Structures are given as structure tokens and as C-alpha cells.
């Protein structure tokens, strides 16, 4: 056992931290988030140049990392900067599925993704599906040498700026069957693909997508027909590690802003940090953040284990980070008082993102239930 970062990862961490601190102040982040694209293509190019997208892919795929701890180190720092660029959508999710299922031809897209030249998005969740990974009702039926896709996709991150979409659809079985889920890699401008983009409350961009008789060639199918589920599950496990690590960065920023405020804001003639009730609550916040960090380390390190142990660790991390993230966000706002309710102050933007992470790829209740199911399956 060893709890120190490798030298490479320590360097990566420092580099991202420095870049974000120097180039991504909060006003700039607001400007970027409110732009039409919802992110900055210029920033994206710089991130690519620094190798940050590549850090999320294995050497085999043309990257130089791709392990759980690479994800967690990078996303923690992205969280600290409230970075909105599509690392999750393009690299972890779409890139992750292509990497697992793609043939050589399809995988050639990875080079562009890593270089930042092409953007991809992962159109998987559906309007009635909530967080369930196998809730695919979108259909794909096979004709002579092409497939026809019909259905709807919900809250797809960064789809409205994507060049490529990884779309899941069902060739057999009922919704909630794991078997029968297919994945396709298609250009986002394929006929019949309608994308309606919108902002999210925490400053990201997402889209509703409708697929109306979308015709795609056989060569768009990723992997074997109906066998995409395990790759989807794995990509989302990695996405959850990324989100949990991002939440650690956010929690620590919320903590630091609040500590600073407690030391400087005076009421009743003393800094409010002198009030014992707040001190004790803050001590709880600090203690719990250490717990969340441990859970993320466990999940990142266990990504290579068997499916059940891997998924249990991921669900543990997402549950604890959801619970503790909410505690941190709500306590930080409450201890600040009114100032934390205002747009022009920094804290609420971190708090909003921290809360909304619970709505991506499974909230506290979903992951708790999933953990219980996995435990039961393991015991059986």
C-alpha cells in the first residue's frame, strides 16, 4: 500500500493547478459558461496542448495515462477552477466507449479527440431512464447494410457542440435488459438527429436529442451487436470517479473560502470564526471532506478490480461525495449568510456545481440502492 502520488501525477497536478489559477479566474469562467458554446474552444486547444486530454487515455489509445488516479488527479484540479470544458463528455464518456469497443477505423477518432480537434458526446440517458444504465428505449433496427435509429436522449452533456456522437440504442430485449444495448459512433450532423441545447443551472451545457429514422452504416456500430452494456457501465464508472474527484476540488474550495470568511467577517465585534457553534460545524466539515477524499481514492484505485468490487467502490464514492458535498455546500452558504446568496460572490458557484454533481450519473439514493444490490449479488 502506498498513498503518495507518483512523480508524473504530482507534476500533472501541479501543472493543471498552475494553469487554472493563472488562466481561469471566476469572471472568465462565467464569460465562457455564458457563451454560445458553453465552453471556450481556445481553452480547449490549450488544455489539449498541455496534454490534459491525453492524460485520460492509455498509451495504447494515444494518450499517456488513463488510470483511475490520472482521472482523479486531473478532475480534482478542474473542480477547483470550475472548468466547464468538455473533458467528461468528450474524453471520459464518448472517448471511453470508443476506446473499449472501437475497431481500428473507429479508434482513429481518438487521436482527434485527444488533440482537441474533434469533440464527441455520449448520447445515452433517456427521458424516462433516470439514472439507470440499461434504460435504453431508443431502438436500432438493422436493414441491408445500415441501421435505423429512433428515440430520444436526455440531458446529454455538450452535445450541441459535438462533432461526433456515441449513441446507444437497443436491438433486442426490453428496456432495463443489459443485453441488447448497442453503441454507434456517428457524425453529429447525421440526417434525422435533432439537438436542442440549453444551459444547466451550474453553468454547463446539455441537450435533448431526438433521433428520427436516423440511418447509419454498419460501420458505425461499436463492438458486437447488443453487447455494449459492459463498456457503457465502465465508461460511467470512470465518469463517476471523475465527478467525485471534481467534487473534492469543489469541497476544498468551499471550505477555504468559508474559512477565510470566518476569519475576516466580523459580527458582534469579533470574527464569526470565534463562535464555537460554527467552529464545531466547521470541524465536522473538515473531517467529512477527508472521508470523501478517501472514498475517491478507493474508487480510483479499485477501477481495475472485478466488476462488483469496482462498482461497489464507485457507488460508495458517489454516495459519500453526494452526501458530504451537500453538507459542505449547504454549510458553506449558511455560515456565510446573505453574501453567499449573491451571484457576484464566488462561493455560490462552487456550491451550485457541488450540489448538481449529485444529478449526474446517479444520486445518493441511486448509488445507495445500487450498492445494496451489488452487495446482495456478491453474498449470493
Amino acid at each position, binding site marked *: 500500500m502506498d498513498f503518495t502520488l507518483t512523480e508524473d501525477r504530482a507534476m500533472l497536478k501541479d501543472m493543471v493547478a498552475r494553469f487554472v489559477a493563472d488562466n481561469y479566474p471566476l469572471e472568465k469562467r462565467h464569460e465562457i459558461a455564458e457563451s454560445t458554446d458553453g465552453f471556450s474552444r481556445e481553452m480547449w486547444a490549450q488544455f489539449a496542448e498541455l496534454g490534459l486530454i491525453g492524460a485520460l487515455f492509455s498509451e495504447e489509445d494515444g494518450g499517456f495515462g488513463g488510470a483511475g488516479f490520472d482521472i482523479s488527479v486531473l478532475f480534482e484540479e478542474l473542480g477547483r477552477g470550475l472548468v466547464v470544458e468538455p473533458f467528461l463528455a468528450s474524453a471520459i464518456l464518448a472517448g471511453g466507449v470508443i476506446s473499449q469497443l472501437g475497431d481500428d477505423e473507429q479508434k482513429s477518432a481518438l487521436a482527434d479527440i485527444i488533440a482537441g480537434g474533434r469533440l464527441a458526446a455520449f448520447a445515452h*440517458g433517456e*427521458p*424516462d431512464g*433516470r*439514472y*439507470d444504465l440499461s*434504460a435504453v428505449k431508443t431502438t436500432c433496427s438493422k436493414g441491408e447494410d445500415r441501421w435505423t435509429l429512433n428515440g430520444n436522449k*436526455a*440531458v446529454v452533456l455538450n452535445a450541441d457542440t459535438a462533432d461526433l456522437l456515441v449513441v446507444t440504442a437497443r436491438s433486442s430485449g426490453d*428496456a*432495463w435488459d443489459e443485453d441488447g444495448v448497442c453503441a454507434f459512433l456517428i457524425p453529429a450532423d447525421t440526417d434525422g438527429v435533432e439537438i*436542442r441545447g*440549453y*444551459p*444547466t*443551472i*451550474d453553468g*454547463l451545457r*446539455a441537450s*435533448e436529442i431526438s433521433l428520427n429514422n436516423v440511418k447509419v452504416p454498419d460501420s458505425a456500430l461499436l463492438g458486437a451487436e447488443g453487447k455494449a452494456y459492459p463498456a457503457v457501465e465502465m465508461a460511467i464508472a470512470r465518469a463517476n470517479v471523475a465527478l467525485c474527484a471534481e467534487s473534492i476540488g469543489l469541497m476544498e474550495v468551499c471550505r477555504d473560502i468559508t474559512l477565510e470568511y470566518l476569519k475576516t467577517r*466580523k*459580527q*458582534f*465585534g469579533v470574527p464569526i470564526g470565534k*463562535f464555537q*457553534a*460554527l467552529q464545531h460545524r466547521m470541524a465536522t466539515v473538515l473531517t467529512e471532506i477527508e472521508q470523501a477524499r478517501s472514498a475517491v481514492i478507493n474508487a480510483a484505485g479499485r477501477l481495475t478490480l472485478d466488476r462488483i468490487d469496482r462498482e461497489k467502490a464507485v457507488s460508495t464514492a458517489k454516495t459519500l461525495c453526494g452526501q458530504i458535498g451537500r453538507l459542505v455546500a*449547504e454549510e458553506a*452558504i*449558511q455560515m456565510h*449568510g*446573505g453574501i*453567499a*446568496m*449573491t*451571484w*457576484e460572490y464566488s462561493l*455560490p*458557484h462552487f*456550491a*451550485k456545481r457541488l*450540489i*448538481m454533481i*449529485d*444529478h*449526474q450519473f446517479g*444520486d*445518493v*439514493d441511486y448509488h*445507495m*440502492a445500487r450498492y445494496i444490490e451489488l452487495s446482495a449479488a456478491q453474498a449470493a
Partner: protein
Amino acid sequence: MDLNYSDEELAFRDEVRKFLDEELPKSLSDKVLTGKRLTRDDMQGWHDILNNRGWLADGWPEEYGGTGWNAVQKQIFEDESCAAGAPRIIPFGLKMLAPVLIKYGSDAQKDYYLPRILDGSDWWCQGYSEPGAGSDLASLKTRAVRDGDHYVVNGQKTWTTLGQYANKIFCLVRTSTEGKPQEGISFLLIDMDTPGITVRPIILLEGTHEVNEVFFDDVRVPVENLIGEENKGWTYAKYLLTHERTNIANVGANKVALAHLRHIAKLQKIREKPLIEDPYFAQRLAQIEMDLDAMSTTNLRLLSSPDSVANAGPMSSMLKIKGTEIRQAINDLTRRALGPYAMPFVSEALDAGYNQEPIGPDYAAPVAADYFNNRKITIYGGSNEIQRGIISKMMMGL
């Protein structure tokens, strides 16, 4: 002990229902029940309808136009109004300033201002908090210096809710720096049109404009606008805050918000089954229902108990704490109920007249924003920490 409504109470409830049925515009209740933003005219319109019926001032003595209702009647009216989708009554003139005027104002002030509150001539806002004086209100710095038959006011107020619509502001100002901080405060009524007043919006974390900063730059206020005595304003301010906290339990509104959550939980599906049948969700929902059911009785019990006046401070603190905690729990669970559809946020969709197709279910648009916006309720009106301090001082002598 009797938990049932008496025949008179039932008759009153029917009367309220009939009134709401006949007088509350459908267009207005639709807006309220779907979480759309209300305009100034929406709020003022409902105020006028209530005033016409004589049901506006439920906390005033009858001689000034109050309803004369007891605690149970007030609760019935609140429950029914909320359930029907009536907008909340803007409290600044009616529920905050008026009790102070009635108790401490001069006859001239009462005669002039009270009718104008009722008929809508004046829209009041509150000038209490300052950037450096939040929980520690007594540290306020806005100065009022006597100059002949005027005060000259300089300083800044903040968190002025709906100040953008107001033509009047009641202010706590410092008229003396001697003695304890509480001792040099006075209570002034100020016309918002007076030269030297500037109103600047504060945008809240979810992007709305509800509150404002108000700047005073050599603003001349006639001395007859002073309430009571100079330097005694702290007494009046505390009286007002106690009244504010009593209203803040918000049982009726919480019941409606909970009913809306149940409605959503029946429509949302989890693995093809209604979310409300999911054991974890059901448990969270049941907890809130139980808490609110007890809270509703706590509210009536404390408000109607004989010692309610003596213990008004700590009792209303308990109601504030529990009422706001329950409301935040409802907001939190409603947010969760939506799953991924809590994320989309198209601000225009909250304005009446937006006619594009909603993103996700039609009830989704305001939910996350409401959750964030309602973080304020445990902060304002004396934060819940301040309330806990009041309870420990007044009920426990700690």
C-alpha cells in the same frame, strides 16, 4: 383538547373556499402553482382583491381594518389560500411596518399610513440590514443627523426585498453613537422618491432579481417621519422581528409545496414504477410529512396557547427554525425527484408567456432554482443560528 374544527370553524373554512373559488383569478393561481415568476401587478392585484373583501389585514386590530380572526381562523385562511394557489401577501407594509405603527406610531402616522397600506397607495420595503450589519443588526452605521426639521440620512442598506417596486422604505438609522450600539438607533419612514436615494439590484445565485441595495446620499427626511422616540428604534425593530418570525413558519405554503412534491413523485418513474413507491424515496417523503404534520400542530398550539405573548420570542424562534428546515427538506427532495432533469435551467421558461416546449417534464423548470433560492430562508429574518441563541437565552437562561 380537541383537534377537530368546530362547526363555526368549518363554516368559516367554507366561506374562505367560496371566496377563493370566486375571486382568485385562474391565471394568477396557475402562475403560482406552476412556479412562474409574478409581476408587480400580479402581487398588487391579489392585495386589492383581499382588501375589497376586508380580508387583507389578519393581524391588525379590527378598529384599523383587521379581520379579528383568532389563530385557528388565520391558519384556516392561510391553508386554504395556499392550497388554492393564492400569491403570498407582500408583508413589508402589512405585516411588518403596520404592527409597529399600531403599537408605537402617532395618531397622525396611523391615520395617514395604515389606510394607504390597505388600499395599496404605498408599497413598503425594509431598510434594516447593512453590508456590515447582518446577524449583528445593532452594529448598523447608516447615519441620520438632525438638521432643523429634517434628518439628513447617509449610508447604505442591503437585502431590500422587492425594493425595486417600493415607493416607501422604513429604515433603522443611527442617530447617536453613545452608549451601547442598540441605544442610538431610530426608526424612520422614508419616501423612495426623495433625492439622494439610489436603488441597485442584487442578483441572487440562481440569477433572479429579488433584493436590492439602497444607497442614501444626503437624503432629507422630515422629522415627523420618525416613529416613536429618537434613539428608541431598537425596541420597535425587535417588536417587528418577532412578528416577522411568527409569519415565517409558513405551514400553509409548506403543505402546498409538499403536495406538489407528492404530485411530482407520482408522475416520475423509477424503473417503470412511480417514484413514490420507491422505498428510499417514500421514506424521505414520509419523514417530511410526519415532521410537517407535527409542525402544523406545534404552530397552532404555540400560537393559540395562553402564554403565547409572554414567550413570543423563543416560540417564534422555534417555529422559524422548524418551518424553514422543513421547507428546505421539501425543496431538496423535489430537486432529487427530478433526477437528471434538475439540471436544465432556461431562465425565460419561468416568465409567464414562455411558450416553447419545456425541457423534460413541465414541472421541472423552477425546481433546482427554488432549492438554491430557498437557502436564504435559514439566513434571513434572523438566521437560524440567531434563533438558537434566542432560545438558549430566553427559554433556558444559558
